[in-house]
């Protein structure tokens, strides 16, 4: 399309430290794109290079046909919603929002500002100063101030990070609907995987300055490419095994003595040692020995070591004979048997829910508990 944003081999070094490492990224026009990664992985630096506030050490940034790599920030059709909002304290809300239009010498500034304030539901605060607003209101002003310029790309740097959980969930939905309404390209940076998945069409998972995987939230979730993605985006059970036989699209594995099936579509490696992965909610439990048939994968002889009831579901930790603890989420449908610590159980899941990852990766990468 016309004005895709394209980063090619973009690297940014601060001294000897590489903050962004040989990044290749294409963000289609009009998409809601999320850059997801833990703190310090280079998300802000990437955004700042797109905004022109930081110059790449090497690589090029194209906006449509135009090379903007070294273009001054004030000449780029790109606007930013800053992490801390960075509202001008000496200007009223209306003047904050009008700032970009005035600099571009646009006409009808006042009426456009009115419309924009209406969009973010802040008309009644037009004459206030930023310091007189709550965090959520300031966030909307920051959004309005950037959005009013109708940039070809809107950059949002953890825009909801300073809000409390409830307000954040609400703003996620509002931000998404505003994006649909205005149809601009949004590049949304966050370390909250749930936020990224709720809002974005495409998510790029970033780690240590590199993109680990890029795709729709479903793709990333169902077929993670690395152990980092498998752990950072939701949770995963990763069990070591090896590929025994391959029949067309179907792979048969030996996992701790059990025969486990997988589909090639969700396999990053198709031979040798692997991490066999499955999401906790894909797994269901049965009492030890109650066989569930041949087309499901079964890991047997587990012992329930912990049960936590969380309303909609029950989360089990099951200790396997080889010592590993696996996680199982069961919906509280009421139709299924409940287990207690010490119960002997088997774990079952459908073969297409197995994903296979390179065994040389660290199985705990990205598994640190992120704040909710």
């Amino acid at each position, binding site marked *: 399309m016309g004005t895709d944003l394209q980063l090619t081999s973009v690297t940014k070094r601060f001294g000897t430290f590489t903050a962004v490492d040989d990044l290749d990224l294409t963000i289609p026009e009009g998409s809601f794109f999320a850059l997801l990664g833990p703190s310090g992985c280079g998300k802000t630096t990437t955004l700042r290079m797109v905004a022109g506030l930081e110059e790449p050490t090497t690589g090029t940034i194209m906006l449509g046909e135009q090379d903007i790599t070294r273009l001054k*920030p004030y000449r780029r059709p790109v606007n930013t919603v800053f992490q801390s909002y*960075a509202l001008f304290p000496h200007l009223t809300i209306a003047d904050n929002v009008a700032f970009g239009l005035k600099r571009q010498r646009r006409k009808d500034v006042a009426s456009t500002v009115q419309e924009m304030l209406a969009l973010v539901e802040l008309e009644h605060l037009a004459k206030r100063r930023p310091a007189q607003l*709550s965090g959520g209101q300031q966030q909307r002003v920051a959004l309005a101030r*950037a959005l009013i310029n109708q940039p070809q790309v809107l950059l949002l740097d953890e825009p909801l990070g300073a809000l409390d959980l409830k307000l954040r969930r609400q703003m996620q939905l509002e931000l998404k609907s505003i994006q649909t309404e205005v149809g601009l390209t949004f590049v949304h940076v966050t370390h909250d995987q749930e936020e990224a998945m709720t809002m974005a069409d495409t998510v790029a998972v970033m780690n240590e300055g590199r993109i680990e995987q890029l795709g729709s939230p479903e793709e990333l979730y169902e077929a993670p490419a690395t152990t980092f993605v498998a752990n950072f985006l939701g949770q995963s059970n990763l069990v070591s095994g090896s590929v025994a036989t391959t029949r067309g699209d179907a792979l048969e594995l030996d996992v701790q003595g059990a025969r486990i099936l997988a589909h090639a579509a969700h396999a990053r490696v198709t031979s040798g040692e692997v991490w066999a992965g499955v999401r906790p909610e894909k797994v269901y439990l049965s009492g030890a020995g109650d066989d569930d048939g041949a087309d499901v994968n079964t890991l047997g002889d587990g012992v329930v070591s912990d049960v936590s009831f969380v309303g909609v579901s029950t989360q089990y930790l099951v200790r396997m004979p080889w010592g590993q603890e696996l996680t199982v989420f069961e919906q509280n449908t009421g139709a299924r048997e409940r287990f207690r610590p010490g119960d002997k159980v088997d774990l079952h899941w459908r073969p297409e829910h197995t994903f296979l990852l390179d065994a040389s990766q660290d199985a705990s990468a990205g598994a640190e508990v992120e704040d909710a």
Partner: protein
Amino acid sequence: MSAAGHISSLGPAEAELDGPPDPEGQKRGWSGYLLLLPGALWLLLFFVVPTVTLVATSLYDPSGSLQLGYQMTGHWQNYVDALRDYGPQFVRSLIYALIATIACIVLGFPLAYAIAFKAGRWKNLMLVAVIAPFFTSFLVRTLSWQYILGDNEALVSVLRALHVLGPEGYLLATPFAVVTGLTYNFLPFMVLPLYASLEKIDPRLIEAGTDLYASPFTTFRTVTLPLAMPGLVAGTLLTFIPAAGDYINSELLGNPRTRMIGNEIQDLFGAGDYPTAAALSVTLMAAIVVLVFVYVRRAGTEELV
């Protein structure tokens, strides 16, 4: 969005404002007044009393003298005489002070800006360098400018060689020397408040400006300068007011035609003509108060005074 949503997201500082009224507020109010007392007494003793005395002196009959005593006759003629005799010195004082203040802004703003934003780990050292001259006396510093600007010294020789000055040209004992001295002596009073204001500016605000289509110059005009305004106003007052009343610089670096109002007041006091000296002082004070008031109103930072 619900009102409850807004309130729940208030920061701790904001939330405190909405908190229940302090039950001890009454007691605190009293102790507040008590704490004001020493300051109020000080002001009464060293500001109100001297000011009243000064105004009273300015209305004494000028035919008296220190030895014979003065008569309080409500002699307004003192003011008319003072303004008639010393009008040029008056205007000159305000003009010199204005030029020196502008020079302090021109020199001080880039300096304060550099210390605030560009100095990095040299910041403290540069601040010390700005303050360091205060460790020697005002008089000594001004005297050393006599030397720097002297007719037979390096600066004048170089300027003559470069034909900036004529072969007989000189710097000392000129209005230029007086204004230079004033600028030099009051520069720190401009730099420090400016630095304090600039230093508080979040660099992300400047980035936000450039992100929103403002060139570096426009960002400076629309973001940096307004946010530095409290410092600029404070610096201007701290420079202009003492410069307008100064007599040392004119005394040491000027000539009889660069005399400022401070020199005249000092001479009049020396000669024992207290009523005229007092009338001049009161007039200068009034003029400065009016100018400051107009300036502060124009600069839009009433919170400063």
